[in-house]
């Protein structure tokens, strides 16, 4: 009926994907080069996470599990680093582990960085137990005996000999379990460590995964949560030391807005085309 009008409508929902890719690249890269310093609102979940960390007395040992691999490290590394900086800054000691084979390299790198910054010693202030096959059995076994689950640390040193673990062998002796997770591992910590052994748990999750663990947060089975890079940024602000989380917020804001803009454009084009087609059928 009206070729010019139709082309205009269709154009809205047929933007070349290369244009889209370029726009996304610009939306992500430009704010990293020229920060906007947007204000960051602190959520209740992040406040609860921070409160739990603050509640651990100096000298006590917390369990930190690196439950992710390099694919999600851009989102989760800032959380892990912030947790370690917070813990070491308060004199809280950390025993770390991972439920992923690919998590070993990540944990070693972040532990080394945080320990070097805070001047902490391996074996006394922190230790890394490494990767154990089968996360469910590992989580349950720690409830009975941490040293039973991990007879040696990641470097082959018997866990019995680690000064850090003197008097610490099960959840009952660990005031807080922190899982930084890219999958349903947070849920499994709640079920096995929380449900059976009453461990107190807080979780840092990718944004996608965070949506799925709200039920545990509402019931109190999770005492606090960080959701995605935004959660990392909130926590960094609470700890008082900005890092990659805060730096990424401007880029994430613009990228989200851009995607929403494209979705709305696509829908506008679709609705207008539908109207034109309905009119044509009536005629």
């Amino acid at each position, binding site marked *: 009926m009206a070729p010019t009008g139709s082309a205009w409508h269709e154009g809205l929902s047929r933007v070349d994907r290369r244009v889209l*890719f370029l726009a996304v690249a610009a939306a992500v890269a430009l704010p990293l080069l020229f920060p906007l310093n947007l204000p960051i609102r602190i959520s209740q979940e992040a406040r609860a996470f921070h409160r739990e960390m603050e509640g651990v007395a100096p000298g006590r040992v917390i369990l930190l599990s690196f439950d992710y691999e390099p*694919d999600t490290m851009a989102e989760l590394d800032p959380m892990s680093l912030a947790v370690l900086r917070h813990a070491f800054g308060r004199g809280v000691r950390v025993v770390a582990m991972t439920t992923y084979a*690919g998590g070993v390299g*990540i944990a070693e790198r972040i532990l080394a960085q945080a320990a070097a910054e805070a001047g902490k010693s391996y074996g006394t202030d922190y230790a890394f137990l490494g990767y154990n096959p*089968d996360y469910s059995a590992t989580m349950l076994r720690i409830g009975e005996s941490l040293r*039973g689950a991990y007879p040696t640390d990641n470097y082959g040193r018997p866990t019995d000999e680690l000064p850090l673990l003197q008097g610490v062998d099960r959840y009952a002796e660990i005031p807080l379990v922190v899982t930084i997770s890219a999958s349903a591992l947070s849920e499994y910590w709640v079920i096995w460590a929380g449900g059976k052994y009453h461990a107190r748990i807080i979780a840092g999750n990718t944004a996608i995964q965070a*949506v799925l663990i*709200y039920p545990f947060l*509402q019931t109190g089975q999770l005492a606090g949560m960080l959701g995605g890079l935004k959660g990392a940024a909130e926590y960094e602000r609470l700890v008082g030391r900005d890092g990659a989380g805060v730096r990424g917020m401007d880029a994430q*804001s613009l990228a989200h807005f851009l995607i929403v803009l494209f979705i709305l454009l696509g829908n506008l084009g679709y609705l207008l085309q539908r109207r034109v087609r309905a009119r044509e059928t009536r005629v």
Partner: protein
Amino acid sequence: MKRTGPVLLGFLVGMLMLIQYFTPNRWIEARYNNVLDWKQVVFGVTLILGVLSLLLHHGRLIRRRASGWGYSWVTVAGLSVMIVAGVLRGKEHGPYPWMFEYVQSPMQATLFALLAFYVASASYRAFRARSLPAGLLLIAGVIVMLGRVPLGEMIGFHAGERFYSLATLSDWVLAVPNLAAKRGIMIGVGLGMTATAIKIILGIERTYLGKGA
């Protein structure tokens, strides 16, 4: 016996794991720990089987010169180099940690980062309000996407002392409808798992034994 043995074993181990939850008995606790240790051993063995299966599969593709067999060479080479590097120089020093840090990590992170581009393209093309449920999903998605970033948190209005932003709406979407749906699914899954577990323990469900069981 071929069927009765595994079913009986399943019954005994299943009952042990069930009973241990309700008793502090030392003997049962020790057996429970044995089962957990064995579970880790079995899991470790499955990893070895996985590696062997991967090698056999790609070995077959290479022998047959099947389509894309060059990629199979890359897979086998990558796997072999990492194993040899780990065995010869250990996992703390030498090429193994180097390759993890400078090859595997950037590659995995890059692949995941590409999702941003594909999500943008796919949601632009496919996320259409074609029906009422699709429209509601679209609205909820837009609210959560915008409400979870600082720029979206600045959009809203003041009502007295309080500032109602997209973040407030996003929190509500996550804490009420999302939570209700997720909880409903979880209760359904939980009941299903309990029923299946009881059926396995009692030997009613035998598909885990393979064909003909």
